[in-house]
């Protein structure tokens, strides 16, 4: 269990964190979400003891990271943004070194490394130099490093960044498997990724917690599509005028008024399928063929906006 209370971190005049508090329960995956520069990495660095906070406390399974660092650090496996790899070592040498650092007994090392390497799928490359591995493999060696010593808590800073889609799916699956007996904090700026693997989400913005939500609530927020994009063949001005007459549509923005029109339609929140049906029949009746019709997924920024300004609640 991780308890974080009132973390504040100043970098000179810049306030990177302005009082962050949350807890991670046992065997829970907490998604840590925020745009670049929001303070995700800083928070994670403080939790793991790499940085010290200006004020506030971090407790790992009841041990304060500053007062009982050895006990606290024993329970944490950390994958920083840049995996801490020695490029001049082979995977096996590196993981043995990590076992020594984390105090894994000598007798258990071989078996422990074998378990970890097969878990993250690097058992085929254990004899190779880390410097010669592809980025995906390097990232996985980074994750393997975090698993050394079997810590109950894992902190993974953007574990899927720079990987190809197949590898991303692999890592996500791995995190899901690990979550059965680990508490995990995963950071990302990709919403869908967090949605898929996390039980709970902390959204951080400008060094403050903007929202703590379960994934279910967050997806509900997402499914309330209020903006639609439609392109069609027909006079844009007329289309816009007719669209505005449909009940539930609050605003229509013309994006393109050439021979192929394009409009962005804002609907009131309650409106569901009926509006889209109504739009379809209206267009069909007028003889303006619809070429494309899709919902505009709210971006992370828009969710932030809606959270921070209180709209869309």
């Amino acid at each position, binding site marked *: 269990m991780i308890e974080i209370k009132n973390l504040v971190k100043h970098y000179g005049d810049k306030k990177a964190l302005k009082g962050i508090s949350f807890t991670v329960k046992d065997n829970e995956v907490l998604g840590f979400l925020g745009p670049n520069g929001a303070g995700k990495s800083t928070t994670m660095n403080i939790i793991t003891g790499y940085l010290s906070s200006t004020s506030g406390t971090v407790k790992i399974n009841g041990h304060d990271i500053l007062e009982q660092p050895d006990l606290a650090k024993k329970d944490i496996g950390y994958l920083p943004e840049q995996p*801490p*790899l020695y490029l001049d070592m082979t995977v096996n040498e590196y993981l043995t070194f990590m076992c020594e*650092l984390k105090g894994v007994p000598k007798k258990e090392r071989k078996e422990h490394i074998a378990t970890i390497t097969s878990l993250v799928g690097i058992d085929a490359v254990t004899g190779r130099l880390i410097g010669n591995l592809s980025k995906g493999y390097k990232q996985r060696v980074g994750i393997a490093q975090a698993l050394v010593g079997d810590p109950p808590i894992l902190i993974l800073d953007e574990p899927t960044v720079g990987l190809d889609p197949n590898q991303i799916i692999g890592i996500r699956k791995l995190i899901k498997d690990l979550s059965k007996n680990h508490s995990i904090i995963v950071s990302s700026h990709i919403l869908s990724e967090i949605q898929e693997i996390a039980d709970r989400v902390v959204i951080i913005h400008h060094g403050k917690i903007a929202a703590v939500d379960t994934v279910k609530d967050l997806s509900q927020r997402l499914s309330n599509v209020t903006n639609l994009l439609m392109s069609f063949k027909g006079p844009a001005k007329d289309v816009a005028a007719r669209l505005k007459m449909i009940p539930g549509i609050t605003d229509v923005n013309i994006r393109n008024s050439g021979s192929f029109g394009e409009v962005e339609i804002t609907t009131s929140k309650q409106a569901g399928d009926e509006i889209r049906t109504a739009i379809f029949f209206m267009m069909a009746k007028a003889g303006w063929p619809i070429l494309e019709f899709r919902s505009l997924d709210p971006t992370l920024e828009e969710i932030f906006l809606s959270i921070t300004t209180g709209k869309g609640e």
Partner: protein
Amino acid sequence: MFAIFKREFLSYFRTPVGYVALAIFTFISGFNFYTLFSEGTVSISDEINSLRSLFIIIVPIITMGSFAEDRKRGTEVLYYTSPIDLFSVVVGKFFSAMALCFVMFINVFIHMIVVSACGGRVGIGAWGSVLVFFFMAALFISIGIFASVISDNQIISAIVAFLIILLNNLFSVIGEYIGFSVSTIMSYMGINATARSNAKTAVANAISWFDPFEKTYEFRNGIFSASALIYCVSFAIFFLYLSFRILEKKRWSQK
């Protein structure tokens, strides 16, 4: 600590660093030995004492990457987030550099064997010089590690280490110069000659007190002094501790 020691020591031989240092040392010591040998008289202690001037080049090469490289690679995170003491990291790196020095020194041991085999004598003065060599290596390596901690850039670390070690070589000369300047200034102030020369000697002595080469000079004659060794060890510990404190402080820094 042992884990760090092992990793760092082996990494000297995974990169060119270890080989470069070994090559320089082997070449110079071999050449030195060859010259003495062909002249017919080999003094092992003279050979060792002249090799000490190599520290100025070899130590910066060995130590420049010890922490600077970690910062660049991002591996320093491991030291901060693993359940180990930062000081043991510093000490582990220090001993790995010492071990490399020992490997280089095997050359001299071979020369000793050759001398003995040819009927020469390896006397107490030679062993005294060996002792001094390693104590001074300890002092200079700790300076090199300190230089590696204070800068993120390997080149700057190497230059800082080079300058500090150079300064160590020049303490006596610098002492003379400063003493001379002091007496010159005093002569402008109209102070009498006796006081001037007293001041000059006092200043020169005070500064050359720091000179490790002067302190250990008598070892080559088989006259050992504990104070010289304590001087080297205490300064080595001082620089290692300073490095440790700087590393500790980095975690709190607000840059």
